[in-house]
C-alpha cells in the first residue's frame, strides 16, 4: 500500500481524536462521570447543561459528588439504552417495510393475474349451413378459410334466444360472442370439411366482459350491484345460459397458444415467449463465449499495462451504463448502419449481449480468481502450456461459478425492456416468429404493451404475463443457486 492511500485514513482518525479531546476539555462533568463509571460515550455528555451545573451543586453541598455523578450516569444509561433500542427498531423497520413492499408487489400482481389463467367458455349449438357459410365440403382449404363463420355463430345465438328481434337486441346478443368463436369454428371446419351441413355443439370463448362477470362469481339472477358494461338485457341472457350450464369457467389454454390480439379473450403470450426464447438464445451464444474469453484473458494473461487498465475501466463503466443507452447504440449502429432487420430477435440479442457482457465478465473473473494457484503450478509442473493450464484445469474448476454468473446475466437480459423498445421490438405480433430475423416481441415488452391497453381484461392478462415472466426468472435464479450449492468448492 502506498503512502498516498494511507493519508485519508490517518487524517480521519486524527480528526476523531481531536474531536474527542475538545469534547473532554469543554465538558468537565462529562469527563468526571466517565472516569467514575468507567465509560466514555461522547455524545451523551455533550449537553450544555452538564458543565455549568456541576459547580453550582457542589457549592450548595447537597450530597456527594460521586452519588450525583452515579445518578447522572444511571439516567444517561437509560437514555442510551433507549436510543440503542430505537436504532435497532429503525433497522428492523427498514427491513420489514422493504419486505412488505415486496409482498405487496407480489400479492397485487398475483391477485390481479390469477383470473387470467381461467377463461369463460360458452356452449354453442351451431348449424353448419353451407348456404350461410358460402363454402362447401369440396372447397380447398384456402376457400374454406374465407367462409362466413361469423354468420353461423350469430345464427346459433339467434336460435338460442329467439326473443331478440329488434336490431339493437340482436347487436347486444352478438356482443356476448367473442370473435374467437369464429376462429374456433373455422379451425374445426378446415380440419374436417365433412362437418359442413351438420349440427355441431362446441365450446367457444365468451366475450371478455361476460367472461369477467362469470369468473367474478357474481349472481347474475340479481343484476343490481353488478358493475359491468353489459346491459341488463345481456345479463338476463347470460343468467339464462348460466342456469342451463351453457357457461363454464375452464383453464385458459388460449393464453399459452395464441399470439397478441386486440381481443383480450384471445390474446396470448406464445409469440412473446418464443421471441424471448430466440433473443435469449442469441444473447447466450454471443455473450457466453466472448465474456468467458475476456475474463480468461484479463484474469490469466493480461499484462499490467495501459491497455489492460483501459479495458478494465471500460468493463466497470459499461456495467453501470443505463440500459436505454445500449438501445440507442443498437438503433444507430446495427439498424441504421449495418441495416439489420428492425424488430428482430437477432438485433435484440446482440444489444442484450453487449449489455450482459460486463456482468458475466465480472463474475467469471471472480470464479477464475477463486481457483487456487496450486492447481496452476501443478499443471505447469507437468509441462502444460499456459493455455493448457487454463483450458484443461482452471476453466473446468471455475465453470460452476461462471455458469452461475451467466445465468444471472441472462435473467437480467430476459427482464430487460428499454433497449428493445429502441430497436422496434414493440410491434403488435400476432404470428409466432419462425426465425431470428422475423419481427417479434419479448415477454417484458408484451407486458409493457398490454399495460397500456384500456380494456380491463388486459390488466389481468398483463399481471398473468408478469407472473409467467417472474416464474421464468425464479427458475433461472433457482438454477443458479443450485449450481452454486452443488458444485461450489471451498479450497
Amino acid at each position, binding site marked *: *500500500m502506498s503512502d498516498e492511500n494511507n493519508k*485519508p485514513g490517518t487524517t480521519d482518525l486524527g480528526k476523531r481524536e481531536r474531536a474527542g479531546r475538545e469534547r473532554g476539555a469543554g465538558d468537565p462533568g462529562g469527563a468526571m462521570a466517565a472516569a467514575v463509571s*468507567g*465509560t*466514555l*460515550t*461522547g*455524545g451523551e455528555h455533550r449537553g450544555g447543561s452538564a458543565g455549568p451545573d456541576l459547580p453550582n451543586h457542589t457549592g450548595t453541598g447537597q450530597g456527594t459528588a460521586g452519588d450525583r455523578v452515579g445518578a447522572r450516569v444511571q439516567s444517561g444509561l437509560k437514555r442510551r*439504552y433507549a*436510543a*440503542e433500542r*430505537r436504532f*435497532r427498531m429503525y*433497522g*428492523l423497520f*427498514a427491513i420489514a417495510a*422493504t419486505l412488505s413492499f*415486496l409482498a405487496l*408487489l407480489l400479492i*397485487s*400482481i398475483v391477485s390481479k393475474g390469477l383470473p387470467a389463467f381461467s377463461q369463460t367458455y360458452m356452449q354453442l349449438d351451431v348449424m353448419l349451413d353451407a348456404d350461410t357459410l358460402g363454402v362447401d365440403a369440396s372447397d380447398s382449404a384456402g376457400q374454406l378459410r374465407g367462409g362466413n363463420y361469423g354468420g353461423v355463430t350469430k345464427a346459433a345465438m339467434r336460435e338460442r334466444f329467439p326473443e331478440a328481434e329488434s336490431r339493437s337486441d340482436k347487436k347486444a346478443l352478438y356482443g356476448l360472442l367473442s370473435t374467437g368463436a369464429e376462429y374456433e369454428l373455422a379451425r374445426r371446419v378446415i380440419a374436417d370439411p365433412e362437418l359442413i351441413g351438420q349440427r355441431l355443439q362446441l365450446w367457444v370463448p365468451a366475450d371478455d366482459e361476460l367472461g369477467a362477470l362469470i369468473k367474478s362469481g357474481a349472481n347474475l339472477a340479481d343484476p343490481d350491484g353488478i358493475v359491468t358494461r353489459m346491459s341488463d338485457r345481456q345479463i338476463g341472457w347470460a343468467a339464462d345460459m348460466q342456469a342451463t350450464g351453457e357457461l363454464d369457467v375452464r383453464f385458459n389454454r388460449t393464453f399459452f397458444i395464441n399470439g397478441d390480439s386486440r381481443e383480450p379473450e384471445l390474446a396470448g403470450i406464445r409469440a412473446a415467449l418464443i421471441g424471448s426464447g430466440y433473443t435469449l438464445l442469441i444473447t447466450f451464444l454471443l455473450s457466453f*463465449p466472448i465474456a468467458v*474469453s*475476456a475474463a480468461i*484473458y484479463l484474469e490469466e*494473461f493480461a499484462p499490467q499495462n495501459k491497455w489492460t487498465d483501459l479495458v478494465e475501466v*471500460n468493463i*466497470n*463503466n*459499461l456495467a*453501470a*451504463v*443505463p*440500459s*436505454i*443507452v*445500449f438501445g*440507442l*447504440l443498437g*438503433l*444507430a*449502429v446495427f439498424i*441504421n448502419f449495418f441495416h439489420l432487420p428492425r424488430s428482430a430477435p437477432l438485433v435484440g440479442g446482440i444489444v442484450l449481449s*453487449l449489455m450482459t*457482457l*460486463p456482468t458475466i465478465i465480472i463474475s467469471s473473473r471472480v470464479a477464475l480468481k477463486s481457483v487456487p494457484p496450486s492447481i496452476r503450478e501443478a499443471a505447469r509442473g507437468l509441462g502444460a*502450456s499456459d493455455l493448457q493450464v487454463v483450458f484443461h484445469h482452471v476453466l473446468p474448476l471455475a465453470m460452476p461459478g461462471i455458469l452461475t454468473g451467466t445465468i444471472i446475466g441472462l435473467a*437480467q437480459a430476459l*427482464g430487460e*425492456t*428499454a433497449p428493445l423498445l*429502441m430497436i422496434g421490438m*414493440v410491434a403488435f405480433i400476432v404470428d409466432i416468429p419462425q426465425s431470428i430475423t422475423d419481427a417479434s416481441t419479448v415477454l*417484458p*415488452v408484451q*407486458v*409493457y404493451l398490454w*399495460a397500456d391497453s384500456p380494456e380491463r381484461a388486459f390488466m389481468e392478462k398483463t399481471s398473468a404475463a*408478469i407472473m409467467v*415472466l417472474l416464474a421464468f426468472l425464479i427458475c433461472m435464479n433457482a438454477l443458479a443457486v443450485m449450481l452454486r450449492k452443488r458444485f461450489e468448492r471451498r479450497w
Partner: protein
Amino acid sequence: MSTAVLIMVTLALAACAFVYGRQRAWRVAGDAGGIRALHSLPSHHGTMVAMWCALPALAIVIGWKIAEPGIISSIVHAEVPASIAQNGERAISLYRNQIENQIAGGSAAGIQDPDMQRLGERLLSVRQTGATALSALALIAAGLGAALAVRRISTTFRARASVERVVHFFLLSCASIAILTTLGIVLSVLFEALRFFQQVGFLEFVTGTRWSPQTAIRADQIGSSGSFGAVPLFVGTLLISFIAMLVAVPFGLFSAIYLAEYATPRVRNVVKPLLEILAGIPTVVYGFFAALTVAPALRDFGQSIGLSVSSESALAAGAVMGIMIIPFVSSLSDDVITAVPQSMRDGSYALGSTQSETIVKVVIPAALPGIVGGILLAVSRAIGETMIVVMAAGLAARMTANPLEAVTTVTVQIVTLLTGDQEFDSAKTLAAFALGLMLFVVTLVLNVIALQVVRRYREQYE
C-alpha cells in the same frame, strides 16, 4: 454460393483439415520413432492446419462484405442517369431503392424504364460476379492455407506455440470488445447529437425551458415549430431521482446496518436473498405496479385529504423507483460496512459505547466513502432508469418541484421520440440522441467518481 453456405463450406473444410493434419502428424511421428519425437501433440498440428485453412478464407469473406456496399454504391453513383443525379443524394438513394426492390427476385427483365433496367442488370451482374469470385477466392485461400500448413508439420515444428498465439489473440480481442462497445456508444450518440446541434443550438438545448418536440412535417403547418429546451426534462429527472433516493437511502442504509451489525446469521441468510428478489424483478413490473397500483392509491389518498394529485405523479414513479433501488443501496452498503475492521468496533466497545453509538460514531464514518460511492451509483441508476418512468410518469414537460404533479424525464422523452414510425434525420429523432448523450455523460461521470471512491476506500482497509 450465398455467404452463409460459403462460411459453412469453409468450416467443413477446416474440420477436414483438422482430421488430416492430426493424421499427418501421427504419420510423421511414426516415421521418426513414435509420438515422443513430436514437439507438439498431433491435435495441435491438426488445429494449426484447420486455422490456416479457415482464417484466411474467412478474412477474405469479411473483407468483401465490408467493401461490397461501397463498391456497389460507387457504381450506382457513376451510372445513375444525369437527370436523377442532379437532384442530389436523396434522389439517388430513392432511385436505387426502386431498382433494388425490382431486382429482389433476381432478374431485371421486368423493369419498364430502360435506364433503370440497364442499371439493375449491371448491379445484378456485379453482385453475381462478386459472389462467384469471392467463393473461388475463399476456397482457393482455404486450400492453399491448409496445404502450406500441412507442409510445415514436422517433429520439431512448435505447433502448440503457434496455435496458442492465435488463441491468445482471440482472447485479447474478446476483452477489447468492451472498449469497442464504449466507443460504439460514444460515436453513435455523439454523431447524431452533433447533427442535432447543427439544427438546434447547444445553448438553447441546455438552457431553454420549453420542450415541445413536435416539428412541422410540412412547411405550411402552424403551431408546431418544435422547441428543444431540455431544462424541464432535467428538472423532472432530478425530481424523480431525488424522491427515489429519499426512499432508497434511509431504507437501504438502515437495512444494511441491521443486517451487517445486528442480524443473526440465520436472519441474514433469509433476508438477504429476499432483498435480492427485489433487485431481480424486471423494471417493467415495477412500472406496472407504479402505474396501476401505487399511482391510483396515491391519487385517492390525496383526494381524501383534499390534495389534488396527478394520476401520473412524480411521487408515485419516484417512490416505486426508490423501492427498486433499496436492495442496490443495501447490498453495496452492507459490503462496505462488513469491510470495516472488527478492531475499530472493539476499540469503541472497550471505551463503553453501546452498539448503536459504535455504529453511528465509528463504523459509519469509517465506511462513509464506500457508502457515498454506493449512493452515487444508485443515483446514476435512478437517472438512467427507464421503464418505471415511461409507464408511471407523464409526458408533460413541466418545470415544477411539486412531487404531486406529472413531470417527464430524459429517458421518457428518448423512448417517446424513438418509438413508432419516423424518419431518421428529423430534429425530433436526433433530439433523442442528444438526450442520450447527456444521459451517458452524466451517468459516466457519476460512475467514474463512485468507482474511484469505492476503490480508494477498499484499498484503505486491505
